[in-house]
């Protein structure tokens, strides 16, 4: 029997970012697991409604990894 699941196809431009997403999923940093299926090196199938959270988490990560002389975060 074919199983049908609604969700979002997430395309990652590199594997590093995909590992970061998987890390978020495993540690449940969004409060819950959201990866439905790990498709391949660049694709994940995830549940609906987390896209904005993920983009936010990515922005945070990039912010932590960058230095600015005017930085107001720390």
């Amino acid at each position, binding site marked *: 029997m074919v199983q049908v699941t609604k969700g979002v*196809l997430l395309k*990652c431009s590199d594997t590093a970012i995909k590992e970061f997403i998987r890390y978020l999923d495993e540690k449940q940093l969004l409060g819950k697991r959201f990866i439905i299926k790990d498709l391949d090196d660049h694709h994940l199938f995830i549940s609906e409604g987390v896209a904005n959270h993920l983009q936010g988490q990515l922005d945070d990560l990039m912010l932590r990894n960058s230095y600015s002389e005017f930085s107001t975060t720390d």
Partner: protein
Amino acid sequence: MATSCDLLTYLQSLPSAVLTRLYQHPPSCLAVYRSLSELGQLYIMRVLFIERPLPLADINSWALPGNNLHAETLSLLNKLHIFEPVLIRTGQQQGYQLNQSYQTNLRILICGGGQLWAVPGHRGDDKHSRDIPYLNDYADKKWENILNFMVGGSEKLDSEIVQVLQYAGLMSQASSRHPSFITTLGFQFLLMDTQSQIWQFILQYLNTAQDRGMDLIDCLKFIFQLSFSTLGKDYSTKGLTESQLTFMYHLCQFGLVYQRKSSSKRYYPTKLVIQLTAGQQSRNTSQAGFIIVETNYRVIAYTDSKLHIATLALFCQMQYRFPNVAVGTITRESIQQALVHGIKADQIISFLTQHAHHNMLSKAHILPPTVTDQIKLWEIERNRLSFQEGILYSEFLSVTDYEKVKKYAEDLGVLLWSNRQRRLMVIHPDRHDEIRHFWKRQKSS
């Protein structure tokens, strides 16, 4: 060029009936003609005085085979319904014919004759006549006021202007009690040059005009007619339709047209609207550049305009402000903030290039490449994830089942991702029902 391209893209999106009605209006014909590329203009001239349809083979012989420009121009003329496809009876050949009303009107424009469009000053002398410097000043002030309001300046505007900004999709309001806020389109709008801004504003305005019960064709005719009028002359409101009067009233609010009172029987077009359709030549180059970008990401703006500084502050961290100069720095944070608002890296770069100080123009690269590259890299950094809604099909019992569904989805053009080994595929949700029906039919047969 970009501006006239926008007009053409917009016209292409209109249904053919609208375009045919538009072509019954001579100024519109001329405006469309002027916004075409040179090749397009040449092609129209070639067939202007030919009564019979031309076979496609003849038209294709105008250019060497495989010439992209030729094919593009031809398809553009076709989409604009200037060239209309016809079947030529003898031999069932495919051919093209110039749109009848377009042909008639363009001939009149070239050879003379026909009715007068709009006559300046035929209401006699105006007691309150306005000269050109006054009109220029008026237009600049009005337009700048609006931009100032959009960047969150202190200027208070009539609620009606704010509403027109909302019609144009530049501002948005959650509810009537909340203050309106600027949209993504609005941010992008601020970084354009004035002429593109006006086109963008007019096109967005027209997009929603029909929903408000206005006649789209009347508005288009009016704007084309305005663009051919003379600066500093007054025109009569006589003969304008209801839609055109409403449209003009809104244009007045934005400084595109001047009216002393809204009940006044005459109006003056301002420099903002005149020459809109003249294409590339009229691009405003008189405005001196004021921005210097250094390789250390420092931005120095020799300006005292609040608007310019507020626009720069959209993507710069401003640091010092002196009477005639402001200094800021492009940082990762400031660019990220702009990107979050929906501004694109290319728009920032083109804004800086457009307003570059003349000392920077003499260099091989107007902007330091390290700065432009870094801005682009900062943009790419955010685009590492892309999301698309989809439906996952899994647990296929056999490879043949999988192949059948995959082939069907591929034919529909909705297959987003697939893997044969694991018998998985992701489908665009739009056509899910069709695939489900297909699968049911397959199983029952």
